[in-house]
């Protein structure tokens, strides 16, 4: 702790002389490597999207860096640069939220709705270290906010229907804006039954029902000062997970924040933003509807997070700098109660997450140095203190069965540095970057107790003595763009030391009935991951555009064995045609055969697939009202398929007709 304080002082001493200087007239904006996926603007969801009312997951999948692990029809887990939740960072407007499910059935993206969000920014590797420690990168889901204007009331009604799964979607967005005040509210409800895979094969337990309600309100009490409060309440009930042995009876989140924004009339500082936040997540698994259950279990989990950040943006000569001080305090607790078939026996109880408290404090600094009108340097550095404590006596003593000398707390220092050089000339653009970053083990990796993974069918035991995982990363991109044609190739390479995986321990007896064994989290010397995506866009005619995407990934450990969830070659290609208010799109997407798989992680060879989608839309404008209609067919040929990231090879949706309607007035 002392060391950290010294470092913080050290950083401030560097920063202070900078702040005392005068502001430069330089107006060149720095280039960034951030990928932005637009979801909505004010009340209206993106009408450029083939299916505007689709899930957040579907929007994110547009990125060449994102894949989704699918355990059913709902709540997919994002993979960023082929890395799952533990190695990535998903934030909502910079807020840390942690899922409460030990089986990763509730990624953060499942607690927001498309109507809440304006965009998602995807940052690869250490570019995403602003809001916390990460290896693979960060996704920040940015909330919708109207801002100040005099447009008064605005309302949108969203409605959708999908034939496959019989999904009904209903939503509203009502906003009011004035010059010094705004309030945005939105509501969305989804109800879906089981979906059918190709060939009309019903996928049992793939139903879900959820609603999401949110509000954001801002008040400007001086021309350069703003206070904003925001709340999201999301509740999903009766969510089926066909790939897992259990479903979910409740996944509930309350996400709140209060933000103060100040644009000082100072020469150096442009913006100072401070936010405090609180969120609480409750997750309850449910096996009561499954036909064959050896032992009925209750598996509830809770995660509460308190946090804040304070972020300053400024400009000094050609330096665009950011300093961000952020903290969070999280409490993760999960338990398992098993009901013996003989009801006279006592209930069997254990803590699967032993009330783990995490206190995280970090300082992040960024300098974007604009060399000239077409090139810039970007440097980031962060240092963080990550403190874990096991607060439950029973949980601590449970883990001490495995680690007799284990202490109840552990402190870690996490570091991150990155440097990038970006050039953006009239036709060519390119970038080169190098970075280093650490992460602490997740709650499951550090403190999980008999967590069953239904993919490799092992019970997992956490390891509090794990070292930090650290990544050395190199990235490069090259782009070429003319008015009609653009092409971009982006690659990143990660060398990850102390790569955390579960290793089987044959001496241990599994807890879950039917499990193959027990794995203890341990670290491989290193693993390497390489991702590259190539995208093309060609304006064939003024109203006809072709886009194509090709993604290749590679992941090996130090024994040259394959890492899990590495995508085979995947591609997407589509043609968009628009005339006046009419838009249409036809596209194909597919994967090559997954030949780089590893049975050690429960993977098998997944055959190649390709599906065909088509959609069309029309926008009507009547007086001040606007009606957007989109309809389409997904998987037109009703192909039966599953992808490399479908948990236990559950098949994906077969042919699906959808219609989305959005009426704004």
């Amino acid at each position, binding site marked *: 702790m002392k060391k950290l304080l010294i470092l913080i002082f050290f950083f401030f001493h560097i920063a202070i002389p900078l702040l005392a200087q005068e502001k430069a007239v330089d107006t060149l904006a720095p280039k960034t490597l951030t990928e932005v996926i637009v979801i909505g603007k004010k009340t209206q969801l993106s009408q450029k999207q083939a299916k505007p009312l689709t899930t957040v997951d579907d929007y994110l999948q547009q990125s060449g860096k994102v894949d989704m692990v699918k355990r059913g029809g709902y709540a997919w887990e994002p993979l960023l640069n082929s890395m799952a939740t533990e190695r990535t960072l998903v934030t909502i407007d910079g807020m840390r939220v942690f899922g409460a499910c030990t089986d990763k059935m509730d990624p953060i993206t499942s607690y927001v709705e498309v109507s809440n969000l304006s965009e998602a920014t995807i940052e690869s590797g250490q570019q995403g270290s602003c809001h916390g420690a990460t290896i693979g990168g960060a996704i920040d889901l940015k909330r919708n906010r109207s801002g100040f204007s005099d447009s008064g009331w605005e309302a949108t009604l969203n409605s959708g229907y999908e034939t496959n799964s019989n999904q009904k979607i209903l939503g509203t967005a009502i906003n009011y804006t004035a010059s010094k005040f705004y309030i945005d509210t939105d509501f969305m409800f989804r109800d879906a039954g089981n979906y059918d895979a190709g060939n009309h094969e019903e996928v049992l337990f793939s139903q879900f029902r959820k609603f999401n309600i949110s509000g954001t309100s801002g008040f400007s009490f001086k021309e350069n000062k703003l206070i904003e409060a925001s709340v999201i309440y999301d509740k999903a009930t009766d969510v089926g997970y066909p790939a897992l042995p259990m479903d979910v009876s409740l996944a509930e989140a309350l996400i709140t924040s209060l933000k103060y924004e100040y644009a000082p009339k100072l020469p150096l500082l442009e913006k100072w933003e401070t936010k405090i936040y609180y969120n609480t997540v409750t997750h309850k698994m449910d096996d009561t509807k499954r036909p064959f259950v050896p*032992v009925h279990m209750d598996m509830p989990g809770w995660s509460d997070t308190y946090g804040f950040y304070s972020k300053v943006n400024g400009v000094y000569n050609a330096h665009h700098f950011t300093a961000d001080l952020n903290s969070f305090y999280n409490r993760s607790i999960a338990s398992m109660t098993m009901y013996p078939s003989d009801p006279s026996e006592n209930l069997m109880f254990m803590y699967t997450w032993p009330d783990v408290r995490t206190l995280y404090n970090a300082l992040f600094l960024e300098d974007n140095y604009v060399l000239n009108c077409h090139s810039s340097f970007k440097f980031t550095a962060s240092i963080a203190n990550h403190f874990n404590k096991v607060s439950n006596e*029973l949980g601590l003593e449970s883990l001490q069965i495995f680690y007799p000398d284990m202490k109840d707390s552990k402190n870690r220092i996490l570091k991150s540095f990155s440097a990038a050089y970006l050039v953006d000339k009239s036709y060519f653009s390119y970038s080169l970057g190098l970075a280093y970053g650490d992460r602490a083990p997740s709650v499951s990796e550090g403190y999980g107790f008999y967590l069953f993974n239904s993919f490799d069918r092992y019970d997992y035991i956490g390891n509090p003595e794990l070292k930090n995982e650290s990544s050395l990363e190199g990235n490069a991109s090259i782009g070429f763009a003319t008015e009609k044609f653009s092409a971009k190739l982006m690659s990143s390479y990660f060398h990850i030391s102390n790569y955390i995986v579960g290793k089987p321990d044959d001496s241990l*007896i599994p807890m879950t009935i039917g499990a193959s064994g027990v794995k203890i989290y341990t670290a491989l010397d290193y693993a390497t991951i390489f991702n590259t995506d190539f995208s093309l866009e060609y304006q064939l005619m003024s109203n006809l555009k072709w886009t194509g995407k090709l993604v290749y990934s590679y992941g090996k450990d130090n024994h040259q064995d394959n890492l899990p969830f590495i995508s085979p070659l995947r591609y997407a290609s589509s043609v968009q045609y628009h005339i006046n208010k009419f838009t249409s799109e036809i596209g194909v997407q597919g994967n090559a055969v997954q030949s780089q798989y590893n049975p050690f992680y429960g993977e098998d060879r997944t055959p190649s697939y390709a599906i065909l989608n088509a959609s069309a839309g029309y926008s009507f404008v009547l007086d001040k009202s606007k009606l957007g209609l989109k309809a389409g067919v997904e998987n037109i040929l009703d192909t039966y398929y599953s992808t490399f990231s479908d948990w236990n090879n559950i098949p994906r949706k077969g042919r699906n007709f959808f219609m989305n309607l959005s009426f704004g007035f």
Partner: protein
Amino acid sequence: MKFQIKNIIAIICIALTFGSCSSDDTAPTVNELEGLTKFKEITNTNHTIELYSHQPVQQGYNEISLKIKDNASGKYIQNAAISWLPLMHMKMITHSCPKSAIETAGTSGTVYKGTIVFQMAQNATEYWDLKIDYSINGTAYTATSIIDVPASAKQRVTSFTGTDNVKYILAYAEPHHPKVALNEMTVGLYKMESMMDFSVVDNFKIKIDPRMPSMGNHGSPNNVDLTQAAADKLYHGKMSLTMTGYWKINLQLLNANNEVLKGEAITESVPASSIYFELEF
């Protein structure tokens, strides 16, 4: 352990520092019967013998404390020399059971303590009685009474004949309150010399394999086999329990040459050993 020693030293240091400023400190009175419940009084013309135990006396290993009250003065007797003899009165025969000597416990010198292992429970026609012989200042006294020894809900004691044709008794002593943790475990091992005479067996080894039959025979890791401690002659080891519920502690008894005298290792086809204890918490 280190931690405890450190703490003790710290407490002593604190006690010395603070204790030195006042001279008339009195030693705090410790309730020597803390946590114990009186379950029986045996009276003869001179004395009343009060019997205490931590848990209700039942089939299995029982720690019993006793005090002798002078009926005339109401005072508790110090420095008595005590021995006891539990007897099972069966239809055809009478036999005793393993028992320890009785020693003074605590500082007042009025509380005496020992253990008795009732290897069987009473029933409608068969019962246990306890004879206590004691002498105070050279005068011998005796008192006898029937005591209740109900069957235990879960198996806490097992008697069997080993492959060496010796009759053994294994009795679960501790932990009294098992936890989801690595528990310190204590077991008593005795052999039957005759109907009246039982002795502690030395230098054997007891292997344990805790299992949960209700959870597909889930087993726990890092158990430590029980070996004999020089101090109390009991067998000590470590038993890990990964969750609450019903546990079967499968046992194997090994002699000093590491030969298995009784009990089986647990495998797919052998879900339980022929000798075991049961726990439920």
